[in-house]
């Protein structure tokens, strides 16, 4: 089935799967994968808002992804929602479709598409390390592997998540009179961080920003154990002393957080690898926990699927294309628009404003020689 020979397949992949303004279009099945504009027929890899958008007519996704879309969009999730569990096959037009776990968030899937002996895997967003809240990624050998590259630079090597959680819990112990507020994306990251905290043995109630409550409830309904969760609304400041509060990234260093007693601002994101990023956001305890593959995972996955051709959808495409080309793989960037460059939402790139750069008014702290 899979051809790894140097000869191009009889039906070159780009003859049946195309980049259109609405997104990745699969012609012989007449459907889009993760369309950025409402489509007649959409195959959705996972529930994040830049992949699962409202307003499609027919939607095919895993049962968990459909549940997430219904929770987020209600009737806007789509006129007809068709669940396809992992591993089951469905023929759409002339294309065979099945979902394989992507390990990104609950319900996340790679779309495995087969047409006339050619297999293309659209992996959506994925990671390789284990996550207590979702099924692990499974590599599928294929002719074309379509990958993200959110963390497609070799500086991104996410540390073991257990170590990051241990740092959080140590800080909670070291500053018992303060609170710890953890910024995390509402779908996936929030629940994973909670599950990891539980796994580390922390069994006190965890407080939730209002924006996190619906999806945490949904995860629990879908069978993910998150321990005792308490809404962070309507409580006195004292209630949070020594506690952990989960909130969206935009809230942790903003007015919402003023209700918390001297909060240690934490952020769970792959971007926290880069110190300047963390500092710009006023983060005191950066936690490098990501739901995206790091550089090693991206490279490993390219090896594992053994595809002679690689298409890179979004992120830092140039480095991954460069790496793959060096391994003798035909690689190109698809230049798809509409995907959240930052991968996690709500962590915008920081441009530098033309401000008055130095602060001429203060005597500089001594010992701040220019390094490197």
């Amino acid at each position, binding site marked *: 089935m899979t051809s790894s020979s140097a000869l191009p397949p009889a039906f070159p992949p780009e003859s049946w799967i195309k980049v259109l303004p609405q997104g990745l279009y699969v012609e012989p099945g007449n459907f889009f994968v993760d369309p950025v504009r409402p489509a007649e027929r959409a195959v959705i890899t996972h529930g994040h808002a830049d992949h699962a958008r409202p307003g499609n007519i027919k939607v095919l996704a895993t049962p968990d992804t459909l549940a997430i879309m219904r929770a987020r969009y209600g009737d806007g999730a789509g006129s007809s929602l068709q669940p396809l569990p992992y591993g089951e096959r469905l023929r759409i037009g002339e294309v065979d479709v099945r979902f394989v776990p992507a390990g990104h968030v609950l319900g996340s899937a790679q779309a495995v598409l087969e047409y006339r002996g050619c297999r293309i895997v659209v992996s959506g967003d994925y990671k390789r390390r284990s996550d207590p809240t979702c099924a692990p990624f499974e590599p599928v050998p294929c002719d074309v592997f379509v990958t993200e590259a959110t963390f497609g630079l070799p500086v991104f090597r996410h*540390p073991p998540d257990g170590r990051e959680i241990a740092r959080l819990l140590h800080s909670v112990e070291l500053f018992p009179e303060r609170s710890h507020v953890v910024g995390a994306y509402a779908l996936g990251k929030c629940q994973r961080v909670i599950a990891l905290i539980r796994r580390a043995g922390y069994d006190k109630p965890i407080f939730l920003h209002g924006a996190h409550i619906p999806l945490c409830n949904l995860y629990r309904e879908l069978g993910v154990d998150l321990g005792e969760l308490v809404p962070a609304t309507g409580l006195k400041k004292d209630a949070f002393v020594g506690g952990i509060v989960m909130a969206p990234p935009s809230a942790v260093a903003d007015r919402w957080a003023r209700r918390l007693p001297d909060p240690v601002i934490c952020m769970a994101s792959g971007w926290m690898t880069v110190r300047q990023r963390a500092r710009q956001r006023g*983060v005191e305890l950066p936690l490098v926990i990501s739901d995206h593959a790091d550089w090693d995972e991206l490279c490993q996955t390219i090896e594992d699927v053994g595809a002679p051709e690689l298409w890179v959808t979004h992120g830092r495409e140039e480095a991954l294309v460069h790496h793959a080309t060096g391994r003798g793989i035909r690689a190109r960037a698809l230049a798809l628009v509409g995907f959240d460059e930052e991968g996690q939402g709500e962590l*915008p790139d920081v441009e530098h404003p033309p*401000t008055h750069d130095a*602060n001429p*008014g203060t005597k*500089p*702290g001594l010992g701040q020689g220019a*390094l490197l």
Partner: protein
Amino acid sequence: MKRFAELIDSLIFTPSRNGKIRLMGDYFTHTPDPERGIALAALTGGLTFTDAKPAALRNLVMTRVDPVLYGWSYDFVGDTAETISLIWPPRPGANREPTLTEVVETLAETKRADVPKLVERWLDALDAQGRYALIKLITGSLRIGVSARLAKTALAEWGGQPVDDIEEVWHGLTPPYLPLFAWLEGREERPAVGEGAGFRPLMLASPLEDVDIAALEASIYRAEWKWDGIRVQLVARGGECRIYSRTGDDIGPAFPDILDAMEFDAVLDGELLVLRDGVVAPFNDLQQRLNRKAVTGKMLLDYPAYVRLYDILFEGPEDLRQLGFEERRQRLEAWYARTTPRRMDLSPMLPFETWDELAELRNGARENAIEGLMLKRFDSAYVAGRPKGPWFKWKRGALTLDTVLMYAQRGHGKRSSFYSDYTFGAWKGDDLVPVGKAYSGFTDEELGMLDRWVRNHTTKRYGPVREVEQGLVLEVAFDSVHRSTRHKSGVAMRFPRVSRIRWDKPPHEADRLETLERLIVE
């Protein structure tokens, strides 16, 4: 090394002083000797070893990483130490991770040419956090927002002893400071007071408001100028010479010209200045000499350093600190006449009868190098810290300018939910040019109002910075203004702070850049 690396990282991200003190204390509790003592030496700048050059590290990383990928990575990260620490490829089955002590001891006996080989092995054995700490350490600059004084304060709080007691014994000790930790853990007696070129905590002055002065008896105070440089302590004991900043950081290496001139045995208190033909240069000139590990001959010529002496603490082995100010001053004058050190002079005393007379003197001083006046009780002993009463600083009245708020940035720590750092501008033609930044001078209540105003009048966002409508006038107070080539406006203010929020004033009535330029004293 792992614990040290974690400490370094936490210190970098923790904005509050108390938080840093807690982190260092936690480190001292959980780290055994001699490792914690070596870390203390690293934090206080007390280590000497063959350092590594950044270029050597970059060459090293190029042997292990695709240069194209390195280039893109560096563009993204923006810092060489951090890029190398992150991009260094793991080598399975690498050596055991070194301790901080091993790193420091090995480097101390290694020739520079052999350093890269060593470093390569260590980089292989460490994780990214460890590699970052290693690179910061061996390139000779931790730059983590911790002064030597703060590290000693953390040690003092951890051990339950006054920090000045630690300063007193400090110089008799060397890394890894085993007797010091033994004392602080109650296992041994306090170590003997060091005889060498240690730092003696400085005596500081309290600010004096104009209204308070009437309550003071003029005849028991002595007056001198408060010079606008940086306060230093010159220590020359037994052939060893040191220049300490106010906080006890050794800044000697940046001022070899002063060190050369310290051919005496004494401990002196003075103001470090750049002086040309007897005239004190603007503070900006001194800034060119600060924060350097080494200086070029050209810098020494272009920015000649000088110390204006205020006080004498030791003459030879004799401790003069218990004498009254006037007696010490006489000793200082006699010592100066005998010794005539190069690159130093005495800060002149200013005779006066009444406060009014002194106020007139103060207001008449337009020289930029003068920040105001120092008032010292004639009988004040030299004591560490800032006792209220014996010494006052009486600053010159501030200059003010009406400016327009242009950008606001989020603060840190407790202010992280507030837009609390303000960039303000003055008119040049029909445009505003930024002329400075201020983040103090307002009450908490005013901060809340400014924060709301910024949020409601944002025109653009750049991450933590917001650009705002040209709609709010801030009256800014500052001590002086200088020419600056570093800023687009060509001017730099000293100590700008918000003195009033002019909710009432239309922005077009704010001051013009020319007004500010006229205040420059050449």
